[in-house]
């Protein structure tokens, strides 16, 4: 029996609508669930105090600082590398076998589970290079993890800069590097910044890659070679070892809010500038 096209059209519409609705519902449910458990815990003391009794009481100040410092180190390392690689791939070498291989490598890197990065970072930085559990080891590991994202978004951004801009620039006697510096990068900036923000979001939320490389010290770090504990690691430890579910949820709420804010900013920048440039 064949369904009447009008009926099947109606049914498909409903099915697709349900799929969309369900997705949004799940997303909202997770966020609302986390926030409703966490937000009652949040107050100024929670954000500005040191933890007491392994985190059972007190606040989460060092983990906020740890998250911030680690992310900063990762971004500072990954941004020049990633943007540089993207410029090289798009402006200096021709599209061909080599760019395909590099791009394939970067894509694969992006798909590797973060715990593998953690293990890699542990073996390379912590053990072999004797950096120990430290901000530096963790930052480097995170940098490698977010590098593919930064390369790819930067590449996309650079490719949207119209060829005519480069052409004019050359015709006015600018060299390639001047053209890149003065025309290509400024016009690609919104896209590049979006990539960096997405990278920040990923670093902030990362647990597995960090716990193996930056450790879980609750003291304030005084150098790049000190261990720190990030919010996500703190959450993991609090909940896994049954120290305090309440404080775990509070930490999670801070994380979720922060990551949401990051992604919204990225979205906003992307939206605002892509519209203006066209």
């Amino acid at each position: 029996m064949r369904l009447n096209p009008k009926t099947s059209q109606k049914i498909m519409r409903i099915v697709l609508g349900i799929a969309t609705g369900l997705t949004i519902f799940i997303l909202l449910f997770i966020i609302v669930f986390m926030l409703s458990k966490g937000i009652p815990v949040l107050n100024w003391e929670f954000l500005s105090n040191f933890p007491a009794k392994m985190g059972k009481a007190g606040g989460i100040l060092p983990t906020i600082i740890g998250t911030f410092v680690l992310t900063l180190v990762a971004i500072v390392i990954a941004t020049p590398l990633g943007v540089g690689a993207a410029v090289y791939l798009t402006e200096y070498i021709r599209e061909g076998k080599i760019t395909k291989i590099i791009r394939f490598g970067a894509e694969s890197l992006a798909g590797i589970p973060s715990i593998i990065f953690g293990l890699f970072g542990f073996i390379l930085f912590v053990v072999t290079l004797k950096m120990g559990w430290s901000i530096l080891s963790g930052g480097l590991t995170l940098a490698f993890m977010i590098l593919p994202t930064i390369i790819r978004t930067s590449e996309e951004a650079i490719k949207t800069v119209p060829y005519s801009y480069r052409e004019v620039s050359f015709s006015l006697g600018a060299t390639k590097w001047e053209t890149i510096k003065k025309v290509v990068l400024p016009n690609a900036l919104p896209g590049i910044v979006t990539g960096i923000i997405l990278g920040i979001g990923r670093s902030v939320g990362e647990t597995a890659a960090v716990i193996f490389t930056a450790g879980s010290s609750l003291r304030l770090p005084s150098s790049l070679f000190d261990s720190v504990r990030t919010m996500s690691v703190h959450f993991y430890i609090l909940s896994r070892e049954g120290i305090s579910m309440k404080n775990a949820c509070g930490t999670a709420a801070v994380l979720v809010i922060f990551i949401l804010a990051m992604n919204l900013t990225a979205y906003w920048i992307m939206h605002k500038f892509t519209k203006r440039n066209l």
Partner: protein
Amino acid sequence: MNTIEVKNLNFYYGNFQALKDIGIAFQEKIITALIGPSGCGKSTLLRCLNRMNDLIEGVKISGEVDFKDKNIYSKNIDVVELRRHVGMVFQRPNPFPLSVFDNVVYGLKVHGVTQAFRLEEIVERSLKATGLWDEMKDKLNSIATELPLEQQQRLCMARLVAIEPEVILMDEPCSALDPIATAKIEELMFELKKKYTIVIVTHNMQQAARVSDCCGFMLLGELIEFGTTSKIFTSPDNQKTQDYITGRFG
């Protein structure tokens, strides 16, 4: 005097020969027009004059292009320096998405002019030279890409004039403009020719007749005839030229 002299120029996009044994001379401070049907190689020839074709993959070139008696395709030529002397205006107005001021100073900054008072002075001079000063003097900070097309094209010329080239190459500079704007740009060309050697590619025969002093007619990669505009348009030697200007093909 000849500013640019092209001798035995052959040009290939891969295996396709786009220019065949071209010989032509562009004289100082006059307007030379290149006309011919679509695809005959006008833009290609124009872009050979400041080596813009170098940017395209897989091109081959033989022969000579002498700019002030030096072959620009010889090994020891500095392409960046060459383009500073032989500038280009494109078919579509293409200002950068920056302010009017920043557009005009772009080339200057590239060439190392940084003092604010010099930049301001040159911006004023360039905008005056392109007839934009009165309209733009209070709008130097507005975004160039939001101006009307005619003003954008003038601005592109101002940006070029700012670096004081000797030759201005124009590839169908009016094809994106309406007739009134076109007339204004043509007026500007007369003004510019007092100081610059101009080569213009155009599809529009009336335009070539109106603005140019010399004219070259191209067909399928060859230069069929070259001479003064009045001769080409009134008593051409070649039958094909005759057919083209009387509109029998093209």
